């Protein structure tokens, strides 16, 4: 993964020829973290922690810095249990297990749903998709193509139909079929649009008429190349729908995905999945050790 090895090479360049952590090294570290979209606040936090350890341990070589950084970043991720899951399994106490997928426009919601359905089906679960994006041009056709690719049923109405009604139908159909997993696609929406955010709350409420504790999972999809606005997205989608899982997409690009660290630090939401391409198999369960390792290997 090119994106991450370049983080490492940058970082190595930063500390090359130095045996001790000094202001220069810390400045360079700041650059590496900020240019990875970690965010100024979290970057300063990491740097402060390292400064504190330099002060405490008196001597800190740049070799150890590598190790400490890895620990500090893993610690930020651990606070939210990010990467605790190891495979695409679901909590089978819930049947159906309902996943509602939300996020701003174009981040990769529909694609992630297709990939997820594929993984769940591979695990032997029966999956139903709900086409509750009734707004975006050809959004329903797009999800239909994914449903066909994976070979799972889809519940849909028409462009312009009430999304809550589609979600309701989907859950009812899933209950009738005794399905294991339901994944509801929703239209992309910017989090500062109050009406559209209220619509999400409504979809959620209507689903609960069929399955009282649905949705078990509200998955917020974030584009890995998004900058600091991802924090606002996490905040507002959580307020509207109680987001309890994150997926970060497009990490096959040059964006460093450092936003994951910042968000894990500031919100108690675990990162569950990462998207690494447009193909059906290009979704991975987020593994914080691999993620951190790939930064510093």
């Amino acid at each position, binding site marked *: 993964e090119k994106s991450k090895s370049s983080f490492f090479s940058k970082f190595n360049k930063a500390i090359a020829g130095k045996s001790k952590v000094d202001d220069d090294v810390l400045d360079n570290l700041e650059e590496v973290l900020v240019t990875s979209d970690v965010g100024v606040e979290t970057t300063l936090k990491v740097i402060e922690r390292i400064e504190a350890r330099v002060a405490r341990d008196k001597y800190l070589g740049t070799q150890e810095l590598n190790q400490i950084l890895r620990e500090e970043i893993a610690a930020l991720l651990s606070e939210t249990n990010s990467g605790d899951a190891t495979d695409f399994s679901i909590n089978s106490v819930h049947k159906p297990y309902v996943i509602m997928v939300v996020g701003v426009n174009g981040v990769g919601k529909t694609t992630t749903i297709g990939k997820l359905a594929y993984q769940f089906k591979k695990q032997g679960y029966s999956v139903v998709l709900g086409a509750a994006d009734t707004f975006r041009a050809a959004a329903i056709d797009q999800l239909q193509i994914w449903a066909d690719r994976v070979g799972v049923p889809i519940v849909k109405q028409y462009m312009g139909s009430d999304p809550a009604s589609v979600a309701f139908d989907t859950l009812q159909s899933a209950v009738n079929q005794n399905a294991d997993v339901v994944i509801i696609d929703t239209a992309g929406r910017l989090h500062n649009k109050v009406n559209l955010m209220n619509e999400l709350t409504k979809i959620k409420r209507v689903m609960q008429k069929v399955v009282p504790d649905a949705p078990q999972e509200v998955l917020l999809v974030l*584009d890995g190349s998004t900058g600091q606005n991802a924090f606002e997205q996490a905040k507002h989608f959580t307020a509207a729908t109680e987001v309890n899982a994150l997926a970060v997409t497009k990490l096959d*690009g040059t964006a460093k995905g450092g936003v994951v660290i910042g968000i894990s630090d500031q919100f108690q939401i675990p990162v569950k999945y990462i998207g690494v391409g*447009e193909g059906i198999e290009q979704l991975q369960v987020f593994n914080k050790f691999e993620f951190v390792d790939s930064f510093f290997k």
Partner: protein
Amino acid sequence: MFSNLSDKLDKALHVLKGHGSITEVNVAETLKEVRRALLDADVNFKIAKEFTTTVKEKALGQNVLTTLQPGQLMVKIVKDELTALMGGDAEGINLSGNPSVILMSGLQGSGKTTFSGKLANYLKNKKTKKPLLVACDVYRPAAIDQLHVVGGQIGVEVFSDRDNKNPVAIAQAGIAHAKANGYNVVIIDTAGRLAVDEVMMNEISNIHKAIQPQETLFVVDAMTGQDAVNTAKAFNDVLNFDGVILTKLDGDTRGGAALSIKSVVNKPIKFIGTGEKMEAIDVFYPSRMADRILGMGDVVSLVERA
């Protein structure tokens, strides 16, 4: 969130009051605040650094107007500099060809297909053109359907060939169709692609060479973070594009990517997208963008009135 930049700058510059001019020492803290504001707005790290150096040079020795808070003067210097950097010759769209061919490019999900529709609608209604949309995304599920729905919404014809998997051939056939049927603008929608995807970058380079568009546009999501510079540079290296389209500015992103991209490729930002509807297109105003990046439109207009 950052509407208090000016307060912070005032505080940082409080030593300045009564001194009458900005000096190296009292400006340092201020520049740190400016830099932080820029980074929080997703301006690229290196560009933010260069920018604060420029601002410092401009600020040193300036007389502080007695009617203003020193922080506000700094803000004004910063804002003017930002505006100047993002501005420059915004020439609009080159429509000199017959037909004029416009090629869209950009990352996945940036807003190319939506903007293709918006531009067609704009040229049809505002410039009395007869545009044709051409569907060259042969990869994304339902991409062709999406463009047809968009075309239907604005009453613009869409050229597509579902049996053809070669975007170069489709683009050429689309242009031929336009010539034969009296369309004077052709807008080519392409698949989203990553700058590091060599095969896909070669593909768009081949489309570009084959059709020689009058206008090549790079469409970028205004929420993009630090990576904006890498992507813009990579696309520009391959396409030498003519202008940038900044989408999704109806959100609350500060949009520092605008400054980063302009700095790294020095191409004009021609239009912005401000919504999902076909009418949500606007020309780019550098001064508004500067306010937005600084998160402080009100304060700046206050300074301007003073």
